[in-house]
């Protein structure tokens, strides 16, 4: 078992052993649920775990959707199994929200590994110097509009944004989502991913640039550009 801490408060990572996602009807038969667990202390622990998850479920599912798209439900279900197994080891239940977040993130990473995804660094290329701001201004058919950049962003709905996120390599999607859509500090992401701060900063920088470029590409492909701005 590998244990990390976020701000020194709570264990962040429970066992990384792969748990085959399974539906509710098979949990008791699989031995995940302790059929003979009856002492009051275990009952109280189970109740506290349930109360914690019920509060956090929409947020955990939203995070999983942004990270893993249509696989989000399986990810969260797996996270619930791992969380249940590890909850009694949680030293500070006030850090339960961060603890569950870390489990979802680790489930995503394991999910990608099981799918055989190789998470590779993107080569330094033109993406690093891509500027969506300049591209929008250069291609704008109405160059004197003050709102052209904001107008561009307003074309995107949440499904569009999820599709753009999905087009990013996981290595970059992860810090982008955690920092800019979940509210983590960069140093917290470094703890969470067990990566050097400089590495996370570099990936976050690349992630923003790739996101800008993919927004433009998506807008081109899906007709979100104003007439005259399309190539």
């Amino acid at each position, binding site marked *: 078992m590998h244990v990390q801490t976020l701000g020194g408060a709570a264990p962040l990572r429970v066992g990384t052993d792969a748990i085959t996602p399974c539906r509710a009807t098979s949990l008791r038969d699989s031995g995940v649920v302790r059929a003979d667990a009856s002492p009051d202390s275990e009952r109280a622990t*189970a109740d506290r775990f349930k109360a914690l998850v019920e509060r956090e479920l929409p947020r955990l*599912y939203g995070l999983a959707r942004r990270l893993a798209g249509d696989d989000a*439900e399986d990810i969260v279900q797996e996270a*619930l199994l791992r969380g249940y197994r590890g909850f009694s080891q949680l030293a500070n239940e006030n850090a339960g929200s961060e603890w569950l977040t870390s489990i979802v993130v680790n489930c995503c990473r394991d999910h990608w590994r099981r799918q055989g995804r190789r998470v590779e660094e993107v080569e330094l290329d033109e993406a690093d110097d891509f500027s969506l701001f300049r591209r929008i201004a250069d291609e704008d058919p109405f160059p004197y509009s003050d709102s052209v950049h904001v107008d561009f962003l307003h074309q995107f709905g949440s499904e569009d944004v999820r599709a753009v996120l999905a087009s990013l390599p996981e290595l970059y999607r992860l810090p982008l989502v955690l920092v*800019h859509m979940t509210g983590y500090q960069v140093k917290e992401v470094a703890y969470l991913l067990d990566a050097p701060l400089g590495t996370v*900063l570099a990936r976050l920088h690349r992630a923003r640039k790739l996101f800008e470029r993919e927004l433009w590409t998506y807008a081109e492909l899906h007709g979100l550009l104003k007439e005259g701005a399309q190539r």
Partner: protein
Amino acid sequence: MITCAEAVRQLWDYLDGNVEESQRELVEEHLAFCRRCCGELEFAEELRGFLASHAENDLPPDVHARLTATLDELSGA
């Protein structure tokens, strides 16, 4: 003095407070006279808000029901 390309590369980190003091001063020095990079900075702020605004946590009822059922069984409810 830094170039526009160097300034643009650091704008997000500048907004996040993740640049060192010496670099922060160089970025601000550049922004003081470069109108285009000020536009880049404002747009970077827009993009940050854009990302945050799309961080909804909608949980469809059917998914909620299935996950709650799993939770109930795990917790022995």
